[in-house]
């Protein structure tokens, strides 16, 4: 199309002044979406993730039955299988909160927030848990 314009332009008697460069979009606008994920061939949960979820569920049930140490052990195994599952860290934070280890509860809550970013339902829970941890840290030991 540019070449056609050139040919048309050459046919005219006068050469118009070169137009100014087209305006560029503001550089602050991202050229790529901010949610940067390396495009890996398969994003479906793999077998490790599925197995990890089974253990997450086991861990959750153990917490409900107040078997805190057993829950932590199972959730650690779930983390080993799928470190990217934020729910494991959420439940680990719950477990450490029950054990009154605020420091570890905070660390795991922080990790849960990192991995569950983007999941509205879970982020509400993570935020609520953070508040409970803060409240516990202020409560007398």
């Amino acid at each position, binding site marked *: 199309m*540019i*070449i056609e*314009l*050139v040919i048309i332009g050459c046919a005219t008697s006068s050469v118009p002044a*070169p*137009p*100014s*460069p*087209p305006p*560029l979009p503001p*550089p*602050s606008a*991202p*050229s*790529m*979406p*901010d*949610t*940067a*994920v*390396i495009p*890996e061939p*398969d994003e479906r949960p*793999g*077998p*490790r*993730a*599925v*197995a990890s979820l*089974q*253990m997450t569920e086991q861990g959750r049930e153990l917490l409900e039955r107040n078997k805190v*140490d*057993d829950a*932590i*052990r*199972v959730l*650690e*195994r779930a*983390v*080993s*299988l*799928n*470190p*990217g599952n934020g729910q494991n860290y959420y439940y680990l934070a719950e477990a450490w909160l029950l054990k009154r280890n605020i420091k*570890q509860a905070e*660390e*795991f809550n*922080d*990790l849960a927030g*990192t*991995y569950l*970013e983007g999941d509205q339902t879970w982020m509400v829970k993570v935020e609520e848990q953070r508040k409970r941890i803060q409240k516990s840290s202020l409560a007398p030991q």
Partner: protein
Amino acid sequence: MGQKAKRKKRQAKKSGWKLFRIVITGGLVFAAGLVLYCWSLSSQIEKRFSGRRWSIPSKVFSDITVLYPGQTINRELFLSKLYRLGYRKVSHKPKQKGEFCASGSGMALFLHDFEVPSQKQEGFPVQINFSQNFITVIERLNTGEPVPVLELEPEEIMSFFSPEREKRQLVSIKHVPRHLIDAIIAVEDNRFYLHHGFDPEGILRALYTNLRHLALRQGGSTITQQLAKNYFLTPERTLSRKLKELLISIDIEIMYTKNEILEIYLNEIYLGQKGSVSINGVGEASNFYFSKPVSELSLAESALIAGLIRAPNYYSPYGDKKRCQERRNLVLRTMYKQGWISDQELQTASAKPVTVSGFMVYANKAPYFIDYLADQLKAFYPPETLSSLGLSLYTTLDTQVQAAAEKALANGLSRLERSYLRLRRSEPEKRLQGSLIVMQPNTGYILAMVGGRNYNQSQFNRITQSRRQPGSAFKPFVFLGALDSFTPASFLSNAPKSYVVDGKIWEPQNYEPDLEERVTIRKALAKSLNLATVDLAMQVGLDRIVSTAKTFQFSTPVKPYPSLALGACETIPLELARAYCVFAAEGVLPHPLSLKEVVDEKGQVLERRHMTIKRVTSPAKAFIMSSMLRSVVTEGTARSLLDRGVTFPMAGKTGTTNDYKDAWFVGYTPDILALVWVGFDNGDSIHLTGAQAALPIWAELMNAIPEYISGQWFKAPPGVVKRIVCSESGQIAVPDVCPETREEFFLAENAPKDYCSVHPPMNILERIMKEMQDVIN
């Protein structure tokens, strides 16, 4: 009668009385002495039996093995593990716990029961199907119900033995099956419930039987006498020892009930040998010969064990099976004759072949790991405690990974010696060395540890005890420290430069000549360019790098010299591996964990240790580091991994020190991290880089443990953005103008905001000229 005769009669009567008095007095003194002696024996017996009766060695266990559908598995390692767990191969569908039957595409397995502090699982039969090296299906054999996650019991790695080296599993008489007790009583002491410690009738009967058959068919000692002999006396055959045995037996019978005596006996008797370790008690014998708890022994198996008592190694089923079977059947016939079993039971049990589970002699499994563990325990559990209290120590060790690590290191070092003559040494203690550690980066679990080439030659643990220079393997910590002010697209000077250090000139060099005088940070790390790294360190500030190193809790001193940027400091390999975990674990530093629980012999948990973490950098920075370390593998010094079958997404860093004294490779994925070191203990040069010496060992290890490779990569966390930048300027690329562009990750707060100033936007005439040129070209 004359007076003389009367006198003689009176004298004789007097002498008779005197003699009678002497005899009675002597008898009373003897009896009193005997009673006193028996009383002193009884206090010895009480002291011995009331306290801790046996030294039970503490056992160390590996972690549970998890299996799930879709898992990639090394079938050879898995099969070895099953054998080590005491599973035995059968040709039919498994009917009993501990049996398995393998076919081409699958395996039917009857799981053992197992109990660990956090769970208890009763064994059940499962079917596991494979497709090449993938598990496709796991389901209950009888019902077809899918099993989403299957757990195999922990493997016993070793025991802390006392000098006696006895292995024993204590059992209560309540859990010993009746037919085992009957079998033992039938063949060893069939009047056990009738006598009071010794049995004269039994002695005479044994003598008669043995003379009749001209063979040692029966012993004359009762069970109580055997116990007295084993527990209190030395084995020499003297009259005094025999008399003492008799008295002790009588004392035992007075002090304890028949069941108490029997229980001690069942736990005491010697029943075989496993290498240098003796098998004592029916609990351990049941496990050693049949890989099952004593309560599950069949009649035939019970008779076999009872038959061993007379001569365990002579009648061992691991020796002459025919002899063992004959002895077993003799026991069964004896039981039948004494009315303990019916004719039907005799026929059925006698017809069974002798099948045992097999065993592996105690080899030094994961010895460096065990030493590391023992070192951590010694404050609370000194060696005397570990060798006597029968504790169970549950660890994080994965025996399959450990086996793969040991093999990879051994193969790698041998390969290097074969390929490079200068690496060979004749004295074993001077040979080329290596070490390897494998961790799960998020939990800190230590899955495998190999502290040296040969533990028997050198127990020095090169993972936990050595201090070596990390060389280029330290560079990621320099680059991490720079991420607040620099980006992966920032440029560094790769030109030769001199620095003055303590009044001396220092001129760092690159390992290989690189003509580019200006390189990006990503490239500088990928290609491990020394000049650019030092340039970065000087711009960032050495104090900043020291401060970054401190947050990673390196215990060795880190001094602010320019050479620090090139890893001219000492580090302990375990701490270096742990530090790399931060990049793999979203910026969190885990505490290295080897021990999970300590449990006493009653099953009470004495101690638990869980994963503990501490954030040392942001998830965003950790991601950027992993992204850059991935370039080391895709474009940089570790790209030879691709030729070695490592095609899954991973990050890593090679490390080579001055004069090539140390070769390192640290590589990781979201699921696993491994560090390899190669070098000489005496600091001789190996003349090889990390990529040449350590990387191949890492590759061999990873290829052997596919179950740990998910193929996943890290997801960019909040705070990370991606931009297309101009390769020449590092600024945002002008579309259709910048000739060479690439995608790059940035921290959101220091992502480039300006368009490329090197390639400004073209006006319409310039665009026309460009298009014409493109058409001509």
